[in-house]
């Protein structure tokens, strides 16, 4: 399953960092962040609980870039 989230991030490099962080989160099969459209597309692993996985994704992203925002 794939879902798209609106995000807010200031710089392109930070977007890359968020992408890496999201990809590394458990339950995420793949993730892409578009700095230009300010969107994050997350492909969830089979059977993953979307809500709890997204909480972890937000946490992971905040860790690498603390003034980013993901609108769930």
């Amino acid at each position, binding site marked *: 399953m794939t879902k*798209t989230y609106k995000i807010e991030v*200031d*710089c*392109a*490099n930070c977007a*890359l*960092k968020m*992408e890496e962080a999201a990809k590394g989160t458990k339950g995420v099969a793949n993730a*892409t962040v*578009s*700095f*230009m*459209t*300010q*969107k994050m*597309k997350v492909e969830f692993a089979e059977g993953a609980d979307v809500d709890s996985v997204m909480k972890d994704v937000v946490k992971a992203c905040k*860790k*690498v870039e*603390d003034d980013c925002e993901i609108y769930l």
Partner: protein
Amino acid sequence: MTKKQKKVLYRIIISAVLLIVLRFLPISGWISFVLYMVPYLIIGYDILKKAWKGILNKEVFDENFLMAVATVGAILLGDYVEGTAVMLFYQIGELFQSYAVGRSRKNITALMDIRPDYANIENENGELEQVDPDDVVIGTVIVVKPGEKLPIDGRIVEGSSTLNTSALTGESLPREVGIGDEVISGCVNLTGLLKVETTKEFGESTVSKILDLVENSSMKKSRSENFISKFARYYTPAVCYSALVLAILPPLVNLLMGNPVNLGEWVTRALTFLVISCPCALVISIPLSFFGGIGGASSRGILIKGSNYLETLATTETVVFDKTGTLTKGVFQVVKIVTEMSEEELLSLTAHAESYSNHPISKSIVEAYGKDLNTSEVSDIQEISGHGVKALCFGKEVAAGNEKLMRTMGLSVPQPEEDGTVIYVAVDGSFAGYLVIADTLKPEARKAMAALKKVGVKKLVMLTGDKKNVAEKIASQLSIDMVKSELLPADKVTEVEKLLAGKRKGKALAFVGDGINDAPVLSRADIGIAMGAMGSDAAIEAADIVLMDDNPEKIGLAIRISRKCMGIVYQNIVFALGVKAICLILGAIGIANMWLAIFADVGVMVLAVLNAIRCLYIKNE
């Protein structure tokens, strides 16, 4: 400017003023240090904080870290002005970048802003009510006032108007519509009030599909973008370690050789090195270029589903076309009437005889007649399947159909050398003439082929299920290099695979089609281009690029946009890396100072961003 940007702007101004004032104050020693720390911290506190957080999170190497180390280092060496100035310029660069990117994002999204906010529905009292388009069920009659966007696909049940389709197709000529016409969402109603019965849900409507497609396009990253993100991952640590080596190794060697150590000098060089090395210019300008290219293309009615396709499109060498619906209009038209009586009369009799049939050929004859049919004058209609139709029109016995029908009536007919379908007509038992019905070329087709050759496409190929003589005639009209006719849908895939095997490495093959049966070929080709307005959903789904107005001329334009965009991407890569490499060397050997370093970082970034914005604009030819 956003709030955040304004805040940064104020900090820049305050800190710049303070810095200038301090320059002219007769201060020295620790007082000077304390005073200079004020502008430094005003401008740099967030960078220092981010760098510190990065270290805590083991995400050490990023531009914040580079800037923090370089400026703190400069201050420790006593260069208060330089340390503060570097931070100041860095922030100016970041602000400019964020502003420029924000602006171009706004511009591009404005180009693509076709999302309707509401739909008007008439309630029981006959008043109009605005509802969320998502809540409108299929079959609802919605009202579209002049000046409003059509929110949902449907069919007009009342009213007539002209529609501006430019948001969808890039075509500026308004389209006339009336009762019974299918209309697609995203068009703007210009003149009259329309009542439209919806035929799709909002989520399935053209406008939603297009938005979805465009918004997701930057998610598919190109090789260049992936190269940059990989590059950034190794580059920053590499630079940091080099700087460390630069700061330690030469003094150490000096120490061992018994020369003066000069630690301060080498540390300064190492810090300069760090400032130069910031990878911002690349990291920001490459995705911006692609986004600009995709945005510019979509404003011309060309939807590109990803930056990777833009990249591949630029290398297109072979373009393969499906015939019907792509190069031709895909609708049958009467192209010739041959008769002893007046053409008008023959057409009128035939149109009346065919008036009850739903066959596309019958419809094309009725359409060619163009006047209202007097159906009360038509009786005794007999449809003879596989042959044609017989009817009594205006008291005359009219028979219209193929050669077989004429033969059963004992009539012999001429064998015209025509491409297309011939409909023979007999009136009162004797042969009266014939009509030729054929698919006609799109008016832009010839120019489209010329444009493709001009942008350097080597080979134009046409694949069709149609008869050989028809296919070859069209091919020669359009100066197409290679034709394969009488193909079944599966044969098209085989043909394209053969062409794929034969093409040069690093060059792409594009396939242009519109039908359901084109979907496999569209996905097999390097680049699949679908006709959007006419194409089947399956074809649009399978394609990488969609031409909203079915105009084959747009293929050449798309290739030009992709080439320009890739050109800018390469310029930026070479320019940014080149300037940095030169400055790094100059910095290492001590020629470049901190000020040059700032130019290498901020200046290159500003120029790269400005260059990237050029992707949005493409000349007409």
